[in-house]
């Protein structure tokens, strides 16, 4: 196949242009959040919130309010309920979280089967990026753009909160605001991503770019840039591949991201399993004392 045609031809279609715009938006905001989740150890929290939005979507449909609002409220409720149960019992956080989100997901599924909706369960679960409308695109741009703006403006405080919450508190930063602020931003990110990748696959977008960047750099600002680049690159490639193989777009994007992580895990210059610098005999990036790749996620 003509490589140029491979790249250009799909975007002759309007729906492909919208799909690409949508996946780029979602990729960017998810990538930025993923850096914080990976460093804070909140990957499971992302998974929990994304599953827990399902009942919110169904209830919002019944009440006739925007689905995004319902999803956001349900996601946040999951995070708050997890915190409350953990604080008031001896059970560890990941266990509580597992119970809360699977319970909420269950409620969502039961409600869905009992309520007549115009929504397709598959689209909610796995996204339907090829079917997005201009309205969807605008809604996502507002939510994702607002989230991005807040995260980037407060990126240093959020980073300090992840790195050393005690110091943050000791210098008088409002740690509770940062904690719940990060949860709110995470919920908004998930809500903005549902149309593109669905509530099951969004977790991949919320982990893989940050994890990939974490292996590649020691500087947080670079980590942000790399994560966004990896995520956006994966979106373009994934969308293209899905067009040509006629596969599910969300899944294709996630697959490309997973592949990018695998490549970096194996061949990253400093911390890869087989650093590319060593394979090609340049530098000493693969010196035996660089064993930190062992505890990379």
């Amino acid at each position, binding site marked *: 196949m003509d490589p140029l045609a491979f790249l250009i031809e799909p975007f002759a279609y309007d729906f492909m242009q919208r799909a690409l715009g949508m996946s780029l938006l979602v990729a960017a905001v998810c990538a930025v959040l993923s850096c914080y989740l990976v*460093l804070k150890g909140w990957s499971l929290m992302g998974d929990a919130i994304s599953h827990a939005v399902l009942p919110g979507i169904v209830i919002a449909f019944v009440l006739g309010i925007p689905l995004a609002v319902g999803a956001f409220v349900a996601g946040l409720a999951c995070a708050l309920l997890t915190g409350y149960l953990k*604080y*008031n019992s*001896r059970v560890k956080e990941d266990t509580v979280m597992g119970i809360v989100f699977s319970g909420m997901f269950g409620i969502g599924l039961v409600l869905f089967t009992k309520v007549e909706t115009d929504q397709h369960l598959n689209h909610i679960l796995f996204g339907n990026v090829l079917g997005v409308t201009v309205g969807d695109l605008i809604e996502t741009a507002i939510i994702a753009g607002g989230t991005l703006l807040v995260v980037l*403006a*407060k990126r*240093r*405080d959020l*980073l*300090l909160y*992840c*790195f*050393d919450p*005690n*110091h*943050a*508190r*000791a*210098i*008088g*930063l409002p740690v509770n605001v940062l904690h719940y602020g990060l949860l709110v931003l995470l919920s908004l990110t998930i809500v903005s991503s549902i149309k593109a990748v669905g509530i099951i696959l969004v977790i991949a977008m919320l982990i893989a770019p940050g994890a990939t960047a*974490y292996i590649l*750099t*020691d*500087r*947080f600002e*670079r*980590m942000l840039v790399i994560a966004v680049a990896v995520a956006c690159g994966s979106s373009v490639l994934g969308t293209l591949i899905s067009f040509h193989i006629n596969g599910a777009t969300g899944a294709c994007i996630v697959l490309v991201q997973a592949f990018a992580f695998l490549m970096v895990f194996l061949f990253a210059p400093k911390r890869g399993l087989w650093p590319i610098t060593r394979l090609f005999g340049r530098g000493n990036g693969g010196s035996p004392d660089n064993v*930190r790749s062992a*505890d*990379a996620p």
Partner: protein
Amino acid sequence: MNRVDLLTRSEAMARPASIAVRDISVTYPNGFTAVRDASFELGPGTICALVGVNGSGKSTIFKAIMGFVTPSAGQVQLCGLAVDKAVSMNIVAYVPQSEDVDWNFPVLVEDVVMMGRYGHMNLLRIPSNEDRRKVDEALDRVNMSAYRTRQIGELSGGQKKRVFLARALAQEGIIILLDEPFTGIDVTTESAIIDLLRELRDAGHLILVSTHNLGSVPDFCDQVVLLDRTVLAAGPTAETFTQENLERTFGGVLRNFELSGHALHEDDDARSLNVITDDERPLVFYGVKKNKKKEGRPDRKGGE
């Protein structure tokens, strides 16, 4: 930061450093009372050791001083101010235990020290020239300027400790809390840190060190607070850091053995040597043996 804040902070910083812990009790949500009726007072130009076994309430006292927990009874005042007020003025700097830090975190040495300045910056945390200068000075002072662009995990144990000390210096808190600062560092670094703490003390800082490294306490601490879920004893090291008080503090937890008589010297006299240790640096008391119960037989059960 607006002018009113600057004024109050400079006023607050002009006050002599002090910590007043008055009859505090701390009960956690699970009902566990970690500290009961604890009281002690410390003034400026002091290095004070907070000594006790694990679970004796050392970290609870730290948390109460930093405002992380609110005492269910009693109160804490820093420089005569309520804790919240003092914390919002950056009066308290905290140096964490090494185990509490994620050393794989993607931050450089200079990033960590700059975090000490956040309380002085605007809401976007964009460093001013003054912030950069304070960071440079702090790094110089702990001799870490050459490592400023290293990722923190690439440092040795002592260097790591110095980075966090530099962060406390950059923060310019007049009360500095150090949590187990000598765990996992070599003796040279330990004495370098102690020298720096003495300089800070002489500049009027109030330094509170939680430690179970008993051997070095008499070397550099002027004051001692002994804890066992309350304050057992508090005061100048020479009067408070006695064998009797330490036995009360540690109960049977520490190795305590005594050498005297023929194990120590050929001739018959009453000189004796008492070693208290938790296998880090032992604390040695030299003295005249008072009770003759053991008839000069050394107790070797504890080790060598």
